[in-house]
């Protein structure tokens, strides 16, 4: 089937692409652009490993057709650190040991960032609930929650 022209702004860079309608945003990011930090864990929207931020909202990119993302602003894990500085969420995941194998980590960090941007004042219980779309098999979540609370605190106090 014919490829369609698509314009995506990814981590601030504009990409004009021709893509097949059946390619998901995840596939476009990974295979077409080569940004492999966003992971494919289940391909059915159930694990959150492919979470990216589209126009300010965290979404599972495996459920989005690339053609429907045209004209939108996309932030991936590769776009989070700036000027050689890690984002506070990234820093907090390191400091608390909030990752192990690391495969779910980009998705967790993007989901956490979006949640903190939306409301950094959530309680631990609220963060636990709001992060339910991301599966981690290694950590048992304890240190991930430590990381998210730490990052939220950091962001709350510096902004």
């Amino acid at each position, binding site marked *: 089937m014919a490829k369609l022209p698509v314009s995506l702004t990814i981590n601030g860079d504009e990409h004009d692409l021709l893509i097949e309608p059946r390619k998901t945003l995840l596939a476009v990011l990974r295979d077409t652009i080569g940004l492999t930090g966003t992971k494919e864990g289940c391909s059915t929207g159930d694990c959150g490993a492919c979470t990216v931020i589209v126009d300010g909202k965290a979404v599972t990119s495996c459920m989005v057709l690339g053609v429907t993302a045209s004209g939108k602003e996309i932030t991936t894990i590769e776009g*989070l650190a700036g000027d050689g500085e890690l984002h506070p969420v990234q820093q907090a995941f*390191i400091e608390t040991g909030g990752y*192990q194998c690391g*495969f779910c980590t980009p998705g967790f960090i993007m989901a956490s960032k979006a949640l903190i941007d939306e409301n950094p004042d959530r309680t631990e219980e609220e963060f636990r609930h709001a992060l339910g779309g991301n*599966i981690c098999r290694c950590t048992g*979540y304890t240190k991930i929650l430590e990381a998210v609370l730490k990052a939220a605190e950091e962001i709350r106090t510096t902004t």
Partner: protein
Amino acid sequence: MSEYTVVGQTVARVDAVEKVTGAAQYGADVHPPGMLYGKLVRSKHAHANIRSIDTSEAEKLPGVRAIITQDDVPSGRRVFATDKVLYLGEPIAAVAATDPDIAEEAAERIKIDYEVLPVVQDVMEAIKPSAPRLHGDGTKDGPNRREISGEIRTLSRDKENDHSDAISNLEAELENYPDEVYYNISAESHTEAGDVEKGFAESDVVVEDTYVIPRVHQTYMEPHVSVASADSSGKITVWASTQGPFAIRSGIAGTLGIPLTQINVIGTTMGGGFGGRFGVIITHVPAVLLSQKTGRPVRVQMTREEEFTDGRPAPGCVIKLKTGATNDGRILAREALAFWDSGSVSGASIGSTIRVRGVYKIPNLKVDAYGVHTNKSGTAAYRAPGAPQAIFAGESQLDEIAERIGMDPVKFRLMNMREEGDEVPAGSSEPKVGYKETLEAVADAAGWWDREAGENQGWGVAVGDWTNGCGPGGVYVSVHEDGSVRIFHGSMDITGTDTAISQIIAEILTVPYESVTIRRGDTDSAPYSTGSGGSVVTFTMGNTAKLAAEDAHRRILELASERLNTNVDDLELRDGKVHVTSADPPKSISLGELAAYSLSTTGGPIVGKGSFARQASTPALAAQIAKVEVDPGTGRTRVLKLVASQDVGFAINPMAVEGQIEGGTVQGYAWAMMEEMQYDENGNVNPGFVDYRVPTSADLPTVESVIVEVPAPNGPYGAKGVGEPPITPTLATMANAVKDAIGIRINELPIKPEKIVNALKSNGH
């Protein structure tokens, strides 16, 4: 722990930045130029004869570059099913195409004509004479038949204490079983110590129960993937997501009948393994075959659905267990009969049935275990393979005994725990292990001794033991002119082991942890290394690293002695410098200066080598306490508190050790409460995260971890393997807590809401 400066300290992991920025390269992130996409063609039936395979429609699809079947395996070793499939999802052929969607479409277009055969999915059905036979000619004298001794079947269920219809039915059937033969048996294991009949006869209390544990998937978050590239000289490079690159190398060589040196396996960053990432055939061999056929790199990546249908999960099993004890709390005898669901091939961890002995003095023990074929994929290791299942039975029944003799479950366990020098039932002499210390630690931390439970709340405790493995490994250490230290080795990092190795080497060479870097080689370059499973890495590679650092240390002193013209005995390596101990004024030379100097010496640069294979390891104990609240209306269970202690020997990186304890405990929780691979006559019916439920952060409270350190004599700094033990007790911890909350024991996992509601109903609620 103050005698050390780097080991025993929490440090950020060596791979921290790459893991939080998305830079880490996992298997599916490898994309060599010209790469094709492979897709396996899989059986659509759980048991069927293959009449024919027609690839003609698939070949016509533009973009298809190769289609292979078993005919394309030159060695003849079985990679694809030919005449018969034994489970849904079994590979029959493979396709390579220029695009993943084209590969998928081509796979769909391959027409396979099946003759569907009767299916057996339940172990207790599979052992019956009426069951379809998976292997052999299907007659009574086929290869998968074992005679059993009569007395095993005299074990009868404790009816009063069991509310599972499924169990009742199979019990009844077994009791009326007409024939002294089991069918579809893949393997067996028998152990006996003392005289169980005598032990039961002398017991005041005897409890018998049957426990049913489901098949669960390791559910590493990264599905299996490999990228293979065969060049025109025949050299094969495989980027593999695996726990054991050297095992994959030998596996591919063996399967394809080619020399080891013709294959280079590059282990990519591993997205979880838990024992399930050792398989050779799953994706690696098909990728190699497709690359050989097309002359281009090929990636074969499993979907999550394929992981469920054709992964190698942990076996489910049925365990009949009988325990006898005296009224004053001494366990006298235990007898187990277990049937493990090994799927279509042998390999289930039936030997782990012995773990029903726990860490207790049990003078009389008898264990009989069988592996049973069913129409499912084969199984593999999952975090302490076999132990969670056996320990679930053992620790559940222990609580029943404690209740009947009116003894506190923690006190009952403490009273029966083995001590140093005690005889391990059917084993050797017990070394020094912190069994009691670990259980006491969790009881204190959880507030067990003054615990309170509101309505529908309950507390559960259990312990689980496991001993880390050990295997060969080699490490090189070099010191550079700027004083930095580089480590080179070939073992896969399994959530923090590279960091532990780096810490050990920094400690011995007295340099800051930050000045140490570690690099992993592929199988062409690195010294042989055992697979990263069985909690071996910190134990094995830690010892190896220690030897390498000590070797470098020797060379450093040798160089300093030469350079400073001082006897080696008068030199000391401290703070990254070699000091002359007796010099006044102080005299020293830095590692960097020595490394620079070494470049012009006869002896040459500073290279330390460590090589290690075997050393006795020491058991470790995990002890856990849970507090739960059950909603009697809906049967839903909420965990209010989850505390986990573990004797880790010595925590080289405490934060990483806590992470292992927390993660393992939650996996055990999930096995107890929600995870279960479900099958019907069509095969696996829940191949995805909607109906195979992995817990999320919303299901759990903070896991409180407690580190106990009773050093292992042969571990690096006393460290033991920490990865596996924490999953072992949790199944029973949860079941014991639910029992305490509702007064009814549920012996069939997972403890889903429906089972609780039904149990309460049958008890008159």
